[in-house]
């Protein structure tokens, strides 16, 4: 299997972009909650990215990526329509179980908004009352509002700065949803670990089933290396083959967050070296740096690129 052509691209913001990749077999096989491992070039690393959407008739899958590490920044520069990715393997992980529930809240934070979309759509198709809750730092980073409105019975937007919807993070949205709908059966949350932890805490006292999609570091994605092991209750599980979905009330999020920082130093080295290389190759950018722009952007979270799960 080779030649994974990029057939469409959309830029949601300076750091967030969408790639639609041609892979008819994958489009046919993919189900909500699954992810792919992407390699952008032969010397590249294998990064896990949650499948944000799939179109069986067009034979494409959609990935939404945040440029924070070396690989994702490089992909932002190089992945234009008509080019191909070196490798796309999947769909990996156990598909999410779309329960026959009456009322469900699908919660996406930041980049997690993209992969929560197939859940919302699947729950809607299964006949549930779907409450979509999405959170962004600010209004400008929002995307896919139309897609969500099309499949959600209720749609709650939260922004950190209050520029759109409720001011606050998604846990504020969850609390409001629980207030309005005490009969909420299930919450599904995807986003950065700290956000999923907040969601699990918000539902714990109400004893609402809360599923989260975990995003540890991975190499192969097939259960072979154990790099993605996570603590669930008192058991150790491999997120790639035993997950990525787990009961949010059982997950040890602090352990997950520590493990996500495993290669923080090396990741920083890679980004610095790459930025340096770009400046050498592109004198215009050098001028911009002289004009006072920071040479190397500070990393919000070096592994946010996989925050989708």
């Amino acid at each position, binding site marked *: 299997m080779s030649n994974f052509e990029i057939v469409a691209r959309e830029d949601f913001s300076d750091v967030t972009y969408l790639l639609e990749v041609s892979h008819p077999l994958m489009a046919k096989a993919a189900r909500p909650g699954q992810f792919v491992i992407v390699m952008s070039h032969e*010397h590249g690393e294998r990064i896990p990215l949650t499948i944000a959407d799939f179109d069986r008739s067009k034979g494409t899958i959609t990935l939404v990526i945040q440029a924070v590490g*070396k690989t994702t920044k490089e992909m932002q520069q190089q992945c234009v329509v008509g080019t191909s990715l070196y490798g796309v393997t999947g769909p990996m992980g156990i598909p999410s179980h779309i329960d026959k529930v009456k009322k469900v809240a699908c919660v996406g934070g930041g980049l997690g908004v993209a992969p929560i979309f197939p859940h919302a759509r699947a729950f809607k198709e299964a006949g549930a009352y779907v409450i979509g809750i999405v959170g962004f730092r600010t209004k400008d980073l929002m995307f896919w509002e139309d897609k969500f409105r099309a499949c959600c019975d209720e749609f709650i937007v939260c922004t950190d700065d209050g520029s759109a919807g409720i001011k606050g993070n998604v846990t504020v949205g969850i609390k409001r949803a629980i207030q309005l709908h005490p009969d909420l059966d299930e919450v599904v949350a995807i986003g950065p670990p700290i956000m999923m932890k907040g969601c699990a805490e918000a539902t714990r006292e109400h004893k609402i089933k809360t599923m989260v999609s975990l995003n540890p570091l991975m*190499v*192969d994605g*097939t259960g072979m*290396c154990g790099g993605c092991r996570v*603590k669930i209750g008192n058991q150790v599980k491999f997120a790639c083959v035993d997950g990525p979905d787990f009961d949010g009330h059982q997950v040890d999020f602090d352990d997950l967050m520590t493990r996500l920082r495993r290669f923080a130093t090396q*990741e920083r080295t890679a980004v610095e070296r790459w930025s340096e290389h770009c400046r050498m190759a592109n004198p215009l950018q050098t001028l911009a740096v002289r004009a006072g722009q920071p040479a190397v952007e500070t990393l919000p979270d070096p592994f946010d690129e996989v925050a989708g799960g």
Partner: protein
Amino acid sequence: MAKKKTIRTIPQERTPMREQPAAARVRNFSEVACGFTLEDALRESERCLLCPEQPCVGGCPVGIDIPGFIQKINQKDFRGAYDVLTDTNLLPAICGRVCPQENQCEGVCTVGDTLEPVAVGRLERWVGDQAIAEGWANIPYIEPAPYRVGIVGSGPAGMACAADMAKAGCDVTVYEAFHKPGGVLRYGIPDFRLPNEVIDAEIGKLQQLGVKFECNTLVGRLFTIEQMIDELGFHAVFVGTGAGYPTMPGIPGDSLNGVLSANELLTRCNLMGAKEFPDYDTPLPLGQRVTVIGAGNTAMDAMRVCRRLGAEKVYCVYRRSRAEAPARAEEVHHAEEEGIEFHWLTNPVAVLDDGKGGVRGLRCMRMELGEPDESGRRRPVAVAGSEHDIETDLVVFAIGTNANPIMGQTSSLKLNQRGYIEADDQFATSVAGVYAGGDIVTGAATVIEAMGAGRRAARSMKAYLGIRDADQPYAIEGRGSSNRMFGIDPAERNFARIRVA
């Protein structure tokens, strides 16, 4: 005809193989053992007595005609030696390097009763390397058969099965989940033991036989085994996915950063090129003082990789003694030469936290050997009050693997209690037309055993498809003439044609 050789007339000393000096090789990833020269090979071939018992053939999991190929070397018919080898083993350059010969052919060698055994592995490797250098390939005339065969996994079991099915004329496709074929040979065994060029050369030979490799394909998830048979038009499928779900010990601290499986370390280093980070994007956890737990081949590989990556100290912690270590003797010897410190009869009980999410040490207990357990090896028992700490900043577990769950999750293949695929003595699984072999059936074993399983499964698959097997005599034992028509076995595919006629 030369005078009959006796144990007294053959060269008494086993021919040594030139190796990179330990001090130099711990700074590079080039191959440690440099192989025989022509003179070495000729001299060593002289040491085979051509004894009538041929115990070595029985000791080989695939039954290579060992005296036959050694005799050809001795006659300076090197191409002939290659032909004899490839009759049974398509991958001599690989097996000569990675087989545990001391437990197989060399372990039972007649010469070995008195002197050091004949260096069968080194000779095999020499012939394999000659073939790569000279571009020899044995592409037999292949009678096309109208069957498509799918192979899941491109490791040694899959490669061996693919070769046999291609030779039987089938249209063979091998699926690999990684971006490069080779399985454990690629991700597991480091370059200094098995260079990538050797794997590439052997895969090239399979491609010459018409075998197609499809990488980036996760069978089970992209399509299922059942879909391969029902929708994708495969007449038979072989599953050789390997064991690959590393065992973690379940001791306190084993989720700390700085604790990883040998599989992860080796995959990052070998397959992903992390040893050349940042020229390759995949990072590698580096340790100054590395402790590897386990004493199998994977453990030896992990230690020696860490040494080459610049670790000052590398310790091996193993709960049994050196005599029970499952690694090839040569690997343990090489590891010792490279300055690995062995802590035999030592068992880890906890990984110690440095307070920042990393590792500061490993708490161990001393062990002593008690009564033999089910594996026949003496069971290690902890010595009370023997706790002690080893100062270390990277802990690598190489304590075996469990069954990979993907096949079980995605197919109706029957699994055994431990999660491995259940296959009968013909390598058939519970699904018609689906065969399985290698680590996913037996649990972790060796490259050559997996290849043997792949070949024997191929034999069953040929019988299932009704392709006559050139290896099989015409009359199959135990079948009376009543089961046969015109002296031809009805299992043969040509039989249908005869019946129509």
